[in-house]
């Protein structure tokens, strides 16, 4: 069912449509929030908060933008506010979380590289990190990313380009230069 139909159903009193909306977007929102916070428990908590905020604000939702973009905006704001309030500390990611059994040397190196990418992303300025996360991981177009971030497409392109360049630099410093 289309998002707008589900929203209409909720506004006219069918509260079961909430569950359908959450089921449809929960994985995307969780992945986005996790990539912003880098913490599983915080990501779970903030995913829930994002949906509660969105559902409570559905009556004020204007159908000019897509529900998905609007939901992404709420997720971004909720996550960034949380980070600012709690003065987020960098969390060490354990290899076991990823479920990888790093036995072979290549696996160890691969894991290390991914950890550097993750840490490098965390070191990027907020807007650059967001542009990369939304474009690369969440697969949003430039236009959708601009709407979710509340800026122009030109700004998204600049943030994305500078972010990727900087991240490649960080990895190069660690000895992990990615070549074609």
């Amino acid at each position, binding site marked *: 069912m289309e998002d707008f139909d589900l929203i209409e159903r909720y506004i006219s009193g069918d509260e079961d449509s909430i*569950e359908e909306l959450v089921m449809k977007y929960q994985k995307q929102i969780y992945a986005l929030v996790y990539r912003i916070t880098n913490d*599983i428990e915080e990501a779970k908590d903030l995913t829930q908060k994002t*949906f*509660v905020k969105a559902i409570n604000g559905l009556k004020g939702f204007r159908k000019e933008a897509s529900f998905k973009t609007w939901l992404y905006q709420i997720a971004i704001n909720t996550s960034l506010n949380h980070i600012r309030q709690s003065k987020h500390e960098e969390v060490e990611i354990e290899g076991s979380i990823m479920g990888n059994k790093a036995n072979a040397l290549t696996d160890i190196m691969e894991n290390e*590289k991914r950890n550097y*990418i993750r840490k490098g992303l965390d070191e990027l300025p907020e807007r650059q990190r967001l542009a990369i996360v939304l474009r690369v*991981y969440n697969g949003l177009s430039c236009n959708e990313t601009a709407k979710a971030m509340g800026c122009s497409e030109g700004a998204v392109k600049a943030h994305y380009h500078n972010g990727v360049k900087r991240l490649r630099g960080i990895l190069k410093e660690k000895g992990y230069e*990615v070549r074609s």
Partner: protein
Amino acid sequence: MKLDHDRIKEMLPDYLKGSIPKEMRSEFETHLKDCENCRGELSFITEMMKVEVPEPGDLFWQMLPRRVKGIVEEEKAKRFSLTSIFFRPLPIAATISVLLLLVITYTTTMQKKEIKEISEVEPFSSPFSVAVVDYSDISEKDIPIIEERLDVNGEYLQTGNLLEFSYYREFASLSSKEMESLYEVLNKEQRNGG
């Protein structure tokens, strides 16, 4: 539309996602073959995409929709109970009672004030007082007769033959209000027998 280097670089995530239009794909891939910079960036983005998000577990996915629904319903109920405080019958009755009491008190106070004001303007006077008696319809001829019947305080002398010749004229000059006052005084003194 001709794709240049910068445009292709911007579209690399879309290419990996498979959302590049078919008509652009061959041009895109031709450029990638020739451009080392774009190939390098494509490899880097592919590496970035390998960074996975840890799974929170099936239970989380199963419970989240129900949990969100529960919280939303709970918050809605809280908001409703807050608004209903102001619409319960008991507070309404209490408020109306207080308002009525205030209105009654105000009205009574105003009435008392009015009565006081009237009594201050028109203080009760003896019907025999000179101030009360209306002399407007009395001619000059009558004045000596009236003066004869006044004592030093300006009160009519009630002794003597008051009824002799001035009785009808005097009473005819009184207004209905004055007559009523006179009747009350006489009645009080039990002198209304005649």
